[in-house]
């Protein structure tokens, strides 16, 4: 009986030391993490200079309606009459006819400003992030149209499905206080 008690005691001791070890381990991990932690959250964003507008943003988002949308930086826009992001390269006329428009959902609105300048706005509700306009604008225009994750829509998944499918590594985690990577004028 005495031997058994001793056994039990030994087991208890072992267990207690393991418990202590785990506590210390967790404490150590917490200490380590406090050194590697940031107060704010991180969010997903697209580096427009890396993006190749492949179209994965449209199809890979876990949301039915992708959280990525096209944005327009007006400072960069040339306000062209022929907008390579708006018009088909083979457009017959520079108007808003469906046969001349590049956008499959008609999400870009063309507005006359003054001869010969037009303003182009994105209707986010319609934009599906297919990137067709981005490609056109980058190839033949100023590149003022590009894709960005819209944080009012994004669920901020721990692993972004689009990031996993991004061919050019354009998706990066950004701090939540600087949630957008917009193109700058002097950098264009």
């Amino acid at each position, binding site marked *: 009986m005495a031997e058994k008690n001793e056994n039990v005691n030994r087991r208890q001791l072992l267990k207690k030391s393991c418990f202590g070890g785990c506590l210390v381990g967790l404490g150590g991990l917490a200490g380590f993490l406090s050194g590697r932690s940031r107060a704010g959250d991180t969010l997903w964003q697209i580096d427009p200079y890396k993006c190749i507008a492949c179209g994965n943003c449209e199809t890979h988002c876990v949301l*039915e*309606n992708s959280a990525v949308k096209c944005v327009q930086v007006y400072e960069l826009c040339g306000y062209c009459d022929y907008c390579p992001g708006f018009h*088909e390269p*083979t457009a017959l006329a520079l108007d808003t*006819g*469906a*046969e001349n428009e590049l956008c499959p959902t*008609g999400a870009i609105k063309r507005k006359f400003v003054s001869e010969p300048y037009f303003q182009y706005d994105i209707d986010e509700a319609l934009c599906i992030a297919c990137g067709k306009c981005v490609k056109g604008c980058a190839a033949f225009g100023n590149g003022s149209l590009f894709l960005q994750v819209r944080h009012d829509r994004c669920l901020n998944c721990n692993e972004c499905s689009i990031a996993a499918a991004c061919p050019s590594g354009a998706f990066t985690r950004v701090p939540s206080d600087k949630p957008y990577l917009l193109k700058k004028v002097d950098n264009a």
Partner: protein
Amino acid sequence: MMASDNNESGSGKGLGPWFGSAIATALVGAVFSIVILTLIVANYVQGRIRETGFEKRLENMKIEITKDSVDKETLADEIRLFDLEFRESRLPRADFTRTGGYLLLGALAVFVLGVKWADIIRKKVQVPQPMQAGAGEQVRQAALARWSVAGALIVAGIVVVFLLVVPDVDFSTEDKVDDSYPTWAEISRNWHRFRGPQGAGIITDPNIPDDWEGKTGKGILWKTPVPVVGDNSPVVWGDRVFLSGGDPNVYKVFCFDALGGTLLWTGDVERTKPKPGEDEFEVMEDTGYAACTMATDGRRVYVIFTTGDVACFDFKGRKLWTKPLGLPDNVYGYASSLETYRNMLLIQFDQADAESEISKLIALDGPTGRIVWEAKRPVGNSWSTPILAQTETGSQIIAAADPWVIAYEPNSGDEIWRAECLAGDIASSPIYANGMTFVIEPYSKIAAIKTDGKGDVTKTHIAWSVDEPGPDICSPIGNDKFVFILNSDGLALCFDAADGKTLWEEDIRADFLASPSLVNGKLYLLTEKGVMIIAEPMPKYRELTRCELGEKCHASPAFVNGRIYIRGADNLYCIGKETSDRP
């Protein structure tokens, strides 16, 4: 789902009215959710098919309209209508999916709640089964569990094997870090450093040619221009010939194919920029930026330039590391060549004067470039190259400078012996033969030191020392019988190796920068004008033949495998017999 429902109702007779309603709830939930699920799936699939079709058609129409043969206006109208239809179908579908999702969720919740409810009503405490035989059952369970775990292991093993069968793409250009080193036999088959194995300049190979002419191309296997100048000698390993070149702007390493002479690759080395406030370093013209001969251990090739920039490349031309040692304080420009020991690179980095105590011998790890050891040297600047002598008492690194000749243990860098016997600007490298090392003090002295000493051997181990005009550039040649020295102005002297007695003296009447070599017992002396004088050294100097290259030569030639590699002012020459096509 339905199956479980049926089970519930089947076994649930006589459990009261609430049970019935619970089952009914579950059934309603199940039916509703199945209906919604079907609708969602149908809508999704239909939408997908429709939209893909639409998209294709729209795209085709847009291509169509660019053609001249079609009625553009009609087609444009058609596109507009079609586009509208497309957009109108798209948005409601997404909405439907979303609403459907929530409805489905609700219906499923109803179903689960119903089932749970029914389960709670139906559940009664079960009468325990008769206890199974205690110990036997336990043992059986344990055995089963063991087999199950072992089975999992086997399955994992099979999966691993299966995965390994999948062909893999081996793009790795990187060889693993190779810390092997050449055997002595390997080294003696090659010309891995300035003046070959042990820096002796001696080779026995009956295939080495003794007849060629640059003008007619006779005996010259190939000739390839070297893009950047340099006075360093070629080093050869296997089928590769390495050279370096440098001017104030670029430092380059060149690798040639020994067989055909094509330039295989060029490596760039960054020149250390002068620190702010420091003057741009300019080297003396005679020395140039690439006077130091490279060295190789058969795995990697090493280079140093006159500004102390060391670099290492692999045989494919990839730069493995660089190590700027700092600008050496050297009056004519740093010019000591490199030596290797096993997989270490040895650098005699002598600077300034003995008092400033900044001279050192450095051993770098070949694969990484890290410093393995450093030995401080109590000497001033020198231009001499250390040798790795294979003495009777083991390998020694022997380095000569003003005023000490010092031997080091190559693994640790510990000093073995030192002898104080030189003064002035030491440019000739020491040589080792038959238990002695021979060193030269320019214009005044030749000395022989026995290498079996320990500590300061100035008084005990200097076998002989004669005051004769020694060369200021060329290194000597020696074996167990004689020591031969060659002054830049062509004055050649030969001493008895045992006692230093002058055997003969000869004025060859030519200028020399390249060091002499001893091939099959014959002296090969390359003049500054590019004439190779082949002569018999014993018993008396007797010129046998002269071969003219027709290009100025500053660098000592390399003799490997029946071929001679000579670096002229602008070209690299390979001289050999046509038949000897092996590299």
